């Protein structure tokens, strides 16, 4: 069993291709059923947003799996041929596929790094896959892990802390002037889109008092209803300045609506309580000389833009920390996936029973020291025979079911019945392999950051079930 991902994103494909490939929500279920109908595709999840279309699948073999998924993608849109599509596709398998999903979920692969929408979209896609039963034991675990990784990234790094939109930058600045937005009053002059958005952000951050004025009185009343605020006649906005802590101006006027003198008077009336003025209009509506007035803080669109740029850089800085976190989490998941392989499970089972036999024999022999050597051997072989007979059925079943669709479930059951995850010998082995493969992953990830990866000619020789040909394959990190 292997996890693979095949897809296109804003990094590899222009919007003309992406929009053709995108699957509308109403048709997601049907598409998933079609995907899982391909032979060798065990589980599937389809993530379709405006910036990416990706298929995550659990397949029996990687190469044929890539082929099937590509076929599936080319079939989603009739006017799109496989040749047109191929140059834009990327393929990942095993750890790289898992790491890719983690990065996507944590918004490290997004156009605006750190935006939160993608996580919701992934949850929705997962929900659809669950509904149509195309997500099974493996994808369930991997996607749930991806969601928790995304949450960890959000809480442990500052990737999503800073504002990356002009309207939100206004809120961030307001919080540096007023510690509690709840007690502040906002005056909205004019109804430019960005100002409305900023007002909405301010309200969702606690502002309760909103006053609105526009040249068109009806418009102001309508807006006031929407924001649960108070409409004010346009002629009065100058006198209302003093009662506003935050003033948002965005009109189409070609001259200054708010002069330095107006603000000076307002600050005086406010007994020097600070005022925050945001001018999101071009041409500007607040006289720039307001900057020089004490306790009045004026920001125009360029200032907000500057803040946004800085924050973007900061997010990229934080993203580096998040990348490390993703690498660590892939390692954790790999360990779990490893435990679901048949060979190590059988080895662990053998070791475990051998350990039990050894310790019980030692205890018995300590008491029965009158036994002759022949007697001891007889007792020992009896113990071995008993142990072998007890586990024989389990081993045979595991080997037989390994390549079947339920194989993973059998392995997990066996591990639980025999408490294999508490033993020491088996775990040490996986630990070793984990760390070596982990290095492999991190180095290859950094190389494949921007460019779409060429399809790798790594043809796996055997499915998980084949015992004995795996050994300490350095590429084993690619398998499930």
């Amino acid at each position, binding site marked *: 069993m292997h996890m693979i991902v095949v897809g296109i994103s804003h990094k590899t494909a222009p919007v003309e291709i992406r929009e053709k490939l995108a699957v509308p929500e109403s048709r997601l279920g049907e598409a998933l059923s079609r995907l899982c109908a391909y032979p060798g595709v065990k589980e599937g999840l389809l993530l379709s947003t405006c910036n990416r279309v990706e298929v995550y699948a659990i397949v029996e073999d990687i190469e044929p799996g890539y082929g099937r998924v590509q076929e599936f993608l080319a079939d989603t849109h009739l006017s799109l041929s496989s040749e047109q599509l191929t140059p834009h596709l990327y393929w990942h398998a095993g750890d790289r596929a898992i790491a890719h999903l983690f990065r996507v979920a944590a918004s490290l692969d997004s156009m605006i790094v750190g935006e939160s929408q993608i996580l919701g979209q992934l949850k929705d896609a997962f929900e659809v896959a669950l509904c149509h039963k195309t997500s099974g034991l493996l994808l369930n675990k991997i996607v749930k892990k991806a969601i928790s990784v995304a949450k960890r990234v959000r809480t442990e790094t500052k990737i999503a802390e800073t504002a990356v939109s002009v309207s939100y930058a206004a809120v961030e600045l307001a919080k*540096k002037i007023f*510690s509690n937005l709840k007690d502040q009053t906002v005056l909205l002059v004019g109804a430019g889109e960005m100002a409305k958005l900023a007002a909405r952000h301010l309200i969702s951050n606690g502002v309760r008092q909103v006053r609105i004025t526009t040249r068109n009185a009806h418009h102001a009343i309508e807006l006031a209803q929407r924001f649960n605020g108070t409409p004010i006649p346009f002629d009065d906005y100058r006198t209302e300045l003093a009662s506003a802590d935050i003033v948002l101006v965005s009109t189409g006027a070609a001259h200054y609506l708010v002069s330095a003198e107006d603000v000076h008077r307002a600050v005086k009336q406010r*007994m020097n*309580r*600070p005022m925050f003025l945001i001018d999101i209009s071009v041409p500007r509506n607040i006289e720039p000389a307001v*900057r020089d007035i*004490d306790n009045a803080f004026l*920001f125009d669109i360029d200032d907000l833009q500057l803040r946004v740029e*800085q924050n973007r850089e900061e997010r990229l800085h934080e993203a580096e920390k998040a990348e490390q976190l993703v690498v660590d989490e892939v390692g954790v998941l790999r360990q779990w996936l490893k435990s679901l392989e048949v060979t190590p499970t059988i080895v662990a089972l053998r070791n475990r029973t051998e350990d039990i036999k050894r310790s019980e024999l030692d205890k018995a022999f300590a008491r029965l020291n009158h036994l002759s050597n022949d007697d001891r051997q007889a007792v020992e072989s009896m113990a071995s025979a008993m142990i072998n007979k007890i586990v024989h059925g389990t081993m045979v079943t595991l080997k037989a079911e390994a390549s079947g669709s339920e194989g993973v479930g059998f392995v997990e059951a066996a591990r639980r019945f025999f408490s294999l995850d508490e033993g020491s010998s088996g775990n040490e082995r996986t630990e070793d392999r984990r760390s070596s493969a982990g290095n492999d992953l991190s180095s290859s990830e950094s190389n494949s950051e921007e460019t779409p990866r060429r399809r790798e000619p790594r043809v796996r020789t055997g499915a998980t079930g084949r015992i004995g040909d795996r050994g300490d394959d350095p590429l084993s990190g690619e398998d499930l």
Partner: protein
Amino acid sequence: MSALLFMVTMGLYFVGTIGFLAYLVRRSEWLSKISLGVTSLGFVTHTVALVMRMVGIERSVVPTFHEALSFFSWMLILVFLAVEFRRQIHVFGSFIVPLALVSLVSAAALPVENVSTFQPVFKTLWVHVTLSMLGTVGFAVAFVAGLMYLIQDGLLKSKRFNVLYTKLPALDYLDHLNQQAMILGFPLLTLGIITGAFSAEIVRGSYVSWNPEQTWALVTWVFYFVVLMGRLTVGWRAKRAAYLTIIGFAGVILTLIGVVLKGHGVDS
């Protein structure tokens, strides 16, 4: 033993200061956590040192400047820890802890010897010194809040959104802190001055002798009175209050230096 603990405290505050100053320009959050830990440890040793000194002292001893400054430093850290505990404004430590360190180092530079007196003046003197120092702590906090206010105000005005900008709290909180510190500090200083005058009366038979330090102290008091009244009535808040409290604190420091140089803690 108390002298040893005193030195240990000074070392810990020194490390805390370095850490908190580095925190001003570095992004890492663990820097503030380590500095906070070291400073808290310093506070514990400081508390023990102070208690031991108080217990060890003879009954009729005049408070020295060493003790007054050490107590001042201890109170500053106490206020810092309280603010830190309630609001988690780590950057406050970058301003308060260095101030506490400077005060402690000044204390170390002053003699520790006990000056005994047979007059009943020592009791009122202890009250006088304690109250004056508590008042000074209030002004020190107002000073730090004012300083932080001016920095944040400057950064906002010049649109320099640097590391310090992200760490400093909102302007209105700093202004509020400034006001609260003044409101608490002023009555304490007033009481300190009154008890000082009583002590002077007992020692010298007159309440006020109009020597330079006393004059300075009164000037400072009047200054703070005007600032506080201006704030509460005609809106001397925000930037103006920040400037005025910084000037006022400079006055307090000058008074203290004057008294120390004169070498007698009897006057106020």
